[in-house]
């Protein structure tokens, strides 16, 4: 099992090169090869999650053994939490690449698309499974740079402008992260996450420590698009080709943003109450402001992009509540409930937001517009898109029996049990406005009469796109099953345990 871990990085990276080389000579090599690679990664990620069986697993690159119990090699770590994220990345990645087979035909330079896509996947997998800060940063840059290129893939005015803004702010984020990493290395003389934890436990300067934490938080906060660091997201996510938007919104901001924040603030830094409160506040602000920004939008993809901010707010708020409780050492079962809610919502969001962007892509594919005011009456001509987008809309709005309902329910109940009544009330209000804005989407896109007379070319999208949308909508229903206790024990509980018991991670790694 351990020996398979590097494949998550090696396979997509080598696929990138192979596509660039062989894609030139063989027509259609790129799309089928990329799909096969992603399918392999899906199988691999689920296999590794199951074989992990709730424990941790470690691979030392190059076989460098620790000296005096100080890890010196590159560590690749897989635990209950990041195995989930890896599964999401590759599963959504596979569906998106399959969807792209039809969708990306409208663009030239398909080779570059698939190559960059594999690079993106490799980068994200790398960020998630790295056990040290340096590799997190390197893989972060790999994935972020390929995402810059993918956002600008249409090379029209809007795309280039969005990509430029994204690059400037992304560069700022990378600078803040690197700055923070530098400060950490200066004091601790190590970059391994587990080792840093151990080094900091020997005592440290409080202010210095806080300063580093804030640098890291705002750096990865930029990647995760937490308000006030969110400004690049609506432009970038709406300008990218739709499958890429699905990837960026559904997976990317989680893998390189939220995941890293959670991982570092639970397992690397010592949890402090002040920091936990700050994170919760940021999450709440994102949740509330994001949704208010979203409801006024008429461009579908901008609307969806703003909702990503808001939904990530839910995740951050919920995990933050868990963090506050862990730092106070109170009510451990409520803390784990809150964290469960957050991670559960993270997974669900990947499914429904990915699906929504694919729906938006299908609409754009047939109508050639993203403006809600120019649509209407699509339910008749595009039944699959209509049905799947309804499922996704209900999921994100938290209506039973879809997955979003259960995760929001857990989040709200955890907030009430933890006595954060205001946060519970805000979560409810945001949920209502989310519902309102998605019903707006449903109404203007699928209901009502068509605004412009539709030609005969307006029909359901081709099979690969339909297939991906149907699989994701089934996923939206199936993920509801995670709420059943025995399923939750197997899948979510290991992820929560590694966070509620922060020292488990570092003791395991340093003990190897």
């Amino acid at each position: 099992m351990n020996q398979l871990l590097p494949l998550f990085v090696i396979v997509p990276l080598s696929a990138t090169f192979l596509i660039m080389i062989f894609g030139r000579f063989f027509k259609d090599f790129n799309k089928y090869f990329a799909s096969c690679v992603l399918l392999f990664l899906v199988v691999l990620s689920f296999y590794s999650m199951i074989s992990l069986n709730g424990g941790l697993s470690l691979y030392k690159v190059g076989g460098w053994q620790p000296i005096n119990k100080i890890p010196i090699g590159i560590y690749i770590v897989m635990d209950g939490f990041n195995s989930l994220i890896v599964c999401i990345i590759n599963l959504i990645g596979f569906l998106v690449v399959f969807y792209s087979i039809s969708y990306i035909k409208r663009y030239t330079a398909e080779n570059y698309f698939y190559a960059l896509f594999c690079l993106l996947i490799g980068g994200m997998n790398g960020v998630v499974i790295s056990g040290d800060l340096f590799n997190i940063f390197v893989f972060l840059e790999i994935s972020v740079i390929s995402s810059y290129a993918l956002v600008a893939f249409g090379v029209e005015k809007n795309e280039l402008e969005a990509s430029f803004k994204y690059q400037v702010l992304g560069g700022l984020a990378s600078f803040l992260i690197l700055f923070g990493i530098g400060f950490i290395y200066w004091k601790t003389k190590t970059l391994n996450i587990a080792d840093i934890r151990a080094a900091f436990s020997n005592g440290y300067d409080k202010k210095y420590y806080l300063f580093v934490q804030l640098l890291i938080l705002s750096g990865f906060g930029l990647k995760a698009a937490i308000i006030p660091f969110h400004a690049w997201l609506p432009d970038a996510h709406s300008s990218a080709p739709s499958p890429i938007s699905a990837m960026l919104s559904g997976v990317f901001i989680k893998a390189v943003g939220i995941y890293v924040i959670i991982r570092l603030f639970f397992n690397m830094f010592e949890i402090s109450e002040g920091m936990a409160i700050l994170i919760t506040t940021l999450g709440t602000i994102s949740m509330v402001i994001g949704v208010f920004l979203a409801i006024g939008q008429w461009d579908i993809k901008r609307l969806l992009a703003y909702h990503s901010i808001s939904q990530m707010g839910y995740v951050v708020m919920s995990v933050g509540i868990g963090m506050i409780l862990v730092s106070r050492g109170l009510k451990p079962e409520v803390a784990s409930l809150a964290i469960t809610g957050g991670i559960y919502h993270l997974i669900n969001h990947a499914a429904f937001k990915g699906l929504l962007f694919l729906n938006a892509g299908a609409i754009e594919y047939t109508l050639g517009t993203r403006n809600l005011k120019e649509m209407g009456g699509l339910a008749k001509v595009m039944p699959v898109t209509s049905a799947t987008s309804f499922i996704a809309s209900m999921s994100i709005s938290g209506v039973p029996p879809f997955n979003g309902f259960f995760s929001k329910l857990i989040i709200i109940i955890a907030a009430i049990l933890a006595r954060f009544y205001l946060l519970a009330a805000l979560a409810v209000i945001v949920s209502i406005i989310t519902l309102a804005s998605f019903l707006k989407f449903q109404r203007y896109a699928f209901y009502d009469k068509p605004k412009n007379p539709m030609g005969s070319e307006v029909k359901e999208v081709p099979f690969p796109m339909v297939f991906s949308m149907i699989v994701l909508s089934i996923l939206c229903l199936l993920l509801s099953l995670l709420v059943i206790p025995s399923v939750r024990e197997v899948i979510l509980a290991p992820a929560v345990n590694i966070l509620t018991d922060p020292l488990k991670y570092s003791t395991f790694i340093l003990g190897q």
Partner: protein
Amino acid sequence: MKEIISIIILPVLAGLLLFLIPEKLRTIKGLAAVLISIITGYLTVVIYSSGNQVMHPDESAAVSGFILFGLKSIIDAARYLVFNSDNLSKLIILFISLFTVLILLYSIIYIKEGTVKNYYSYFLITLGCSYGAVLSDNLLLFFFFWGILGITLYKLISGHDEESSATAKKTLILIGASDSIMIIGIGIIWKITGTLSIGSISVPTTNALSVVAFLALLTGSFTKAGAFPFHTWVPDYAKSAPASSSAYMPASLDKLLGIYFLARITNKMFILNGWLTILLLSIGVISIITAVMMALVQHNYKRLLGYHAVSQVGYMILGFGLGSTIGVAAGLFHMVNNAIYKSGLFLSSGCIEYRTGKENIDDLGGLSKVMPVTFVATLIFAMSISGIPPFNGFASKWMIYQGIIDFGSGSGIASKLWVLWLGMAVLGSALTMASFIKLIGGIFLSRRRPEFENIKEVPVLMWLPLAVLSLFCVVFGVFATNLVVPKLFMPVSGSFRFLGFWNSSFVSLLVLISIILGIILYLAFNLKKFRTEDSFIGGERIQDQTSYSTTEFYKTIGEFRFFSGFYKKAEEKWFDIYDLSKRFVLWLSHQLSEAHSGMLPGYVLWVVAGLIIMLLIMI
């Protein structure tokens, strides 16, 4: 035991299977749906006649696991799967079955191609989830079923034009919003009591937390049932949805469920304090009066019925607000009666629309001769809703009045105000009468238009449900005090004695005798000899100019100085909680998006400012 699980799962599974059958075979789909509803109807009768039972987790998991997967795979989810059939839920499921069968029969002909896609699927899912909501003992399980009903409500409206799609959106937003608010109530209950079993919760409303929980759950119940101020979806829905959908959801099932939940929370789950009682009673009378005032000025008959669907809820809330045994029984009785005549009214409005295609009272007239069955049934429903003895509406309203008078002898501010509650309730009843005279007069009486000469009565499958429902109106009215209330409603509320002397059957007999006397007098003195002339001035016939439509008489109400301001504001949706919040949200949204100018330096500034602020706060 098994029946409880089967009546939930059977319709849902059947509904899901019907998705696979193409729309062209919708008559077959309809017949299948009728078959399923009859089977489940039979099962509910079995449940009703057996004793009360709480279904234990293991057992229900075993049974449902057996039905669903053929194995006990969901056994560990068992602590949420608790079903309970007590007197209240048994009563409700019985009536759910009744309405489902009747309205499905009606739908087979009424639902034409292209009205609503997958009508029968959503219909059956609604059925299963309604049973589920009523029978579940766990609050979360209850809420799960309750939430799905919002989706089916949304899907049972066509949404092919601008108005109906806007209505569908508004409906689901209001329903979904109230459902989300309910989560807060459920969470607080969990926090306070540590349990979610509806049967064992009893929370005194002494501190702010429990009051908030109560209000949150009340919001859910009120929105579902359509009470002020969350009622605004009901008239819109009634206007835009197919009549059978309106008859099914807002008129009968949503009332049954909403009031069922109101009964649960006011009676058992919370012990109300004095202020909450006043709140309930005031909302009751406000619902009665405001909705009926709006109904008076409507021209669209479906919308008019929609406002009455709101107004009648006020009576039920009054009943439950009183909290006494007679009040609860009266509230439940009125709920059932209302569901009977209101779904009947919606169905007859569907008949009228089916034959004439007109939606406004002004465009109709004189249909009594050509559609006699519809006319008689509608007349009975109208008299029932207006509270005319001996029909059922009178019987339950009379019990509510009795309850209020009885309540007046108690202490507390709410009791001191009993004359107010009583007066408003009676006034509301009178105004209901007024608006139904408009409906009956405008549609069935008055002068028939030439284009309606060749209209025929609706097919038998459409008028049969009407006939059955009107029969129920009569039976429930005539045998109210000696049969219906003691047999059906006293087991739920506990037994009580009626105030004063009132025996519905005896009074019905008196009414009958006086009608017969009247007919005898009419025939005996041969009063038929009177002369009819068209109106004329100076020998000129001016029939066309002097023929006023019935609605003209009601215009004056809207022109009273006191009311006209209110009506104008209501036109502008100033009293619509949906539009008010929509305006606020969009305003805020606009303000926030102004800040997103798209200027990169500004965005960079935000990042830096955010970092600095965080540094200042933390260090």
